[in-house]
């Protein structure tokens, strides 16, 4: 889902940074509050970031004959919400842009909006709905992680298509179909793999540290809530 340096017009880079900014600021405020008021949760915060680091580094083969990587944002968004997830995702995106030239700094806002904000937000909604409906942790995390992953790539396809519409006058529907076939179709099996892996870890947590899920239960869908 990394949009490479130079593939979004400057105006879109600004727009996506503007969209990212409020979520990121709320995330910083919430993260500082968590670390100050609940220092015992430092390890869980680190764990949430660790999954993004680990899983987003794994390039996996897909049914389209190309490779892509999962995002690993499921744990972070379920425990700490969209704001904190956007901060943790940005750290990983900067690491990749700086060292591996994957993504870029001009496209950091767009990449954060897809990977750290909108994709995870939809995953979090699935988590909350499934948990309310009485689904167990395994099933709820499977859908939260898989949907967050898949929607990240759908958002990337939208971002690229919008850029093509304004820059070269492409038809939005045509561009979306092409971009979705590149990004989203490739991502379907990877989203399933990510869903299974994170669901297994969530099951491990549920059986060994069930208390941790109190954090997830108190977490709000509202991305601008700084309540901890």
């Amino acid at each position, binding site marked *: 889902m990394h949009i490479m340096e130079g593939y979004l017009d400057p105006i879109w880079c600004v727009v996506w940074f503007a969209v990212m900014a409020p979520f990121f600021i709320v995330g910083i405020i919430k993260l500082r509050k968590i670390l100050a008021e609940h220092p015992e949760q430092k390890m869980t915060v680190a764990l949430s970031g660790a999954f993004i680091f680990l899983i987003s580094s794994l390039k996996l083969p897909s049914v389209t004959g190309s490779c892509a990587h999962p995002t690993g944002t499921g744990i972070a968004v379920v425990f700490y919400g969209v704001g904190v997830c956007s901060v943790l995702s940005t750290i990983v995106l900067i690491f990749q842009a700086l*060292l591996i030239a994957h993504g870029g700094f001009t496209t950091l806002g767009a990449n954060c909006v897809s990977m750290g904000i909108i994709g995870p937000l939809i995953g979090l909604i699935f988590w909350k709905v499934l948990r309310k409906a009485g689904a167990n942790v395994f099933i709820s995390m499977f859908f939260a992680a898989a949907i967050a992953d898949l929607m990240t790539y759908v958002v990337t396809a939208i971002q690229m298509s919008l850029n093509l519409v304004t820059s070269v006058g492409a038809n939005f529907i045509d561009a979306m179909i092409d971009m979705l076939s590149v990004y989203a179709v490739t991502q379907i099996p990877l989203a399933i793999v990510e869903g299974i892996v994170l669901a*297994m870890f969530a099951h491990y947590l549920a059986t*060994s540290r069930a208390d941790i899920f109190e954090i997830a239960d108190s977490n709000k869908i509202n991305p601008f809530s700084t309540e901890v």
Partner: protein
Amino acid sequence: MANDKMIYIVGFAVVAIMVVGILAFVPGDYGGSDDAGGEEAEKYGYVPWLTDWIDAIYGELPGEIEAMLFAVQSAIGAVIIGYFIGTNSARKKMAAGAAAE
């Protein structure tokens, strides 16, 4: 407990079968979808207005170095997850020991 083990065994087996199955039966060069997205934009006549500035500093990264940097990224995550699981199981053992006393 046996049910827990079964969840992990089946979960890892499904992941392995999916990855190996795709590699074995789907033909392709397995290039990155990130690059494919850029190429798709270029088919519409889009010309990137900026090249990776990192390339200007240390040139295009050789595949081996890129793989090493991805491995470093994986390792950072894996070390933290491993530490969490280690401390968690130690805590469980200590709690079980205290309860036995």
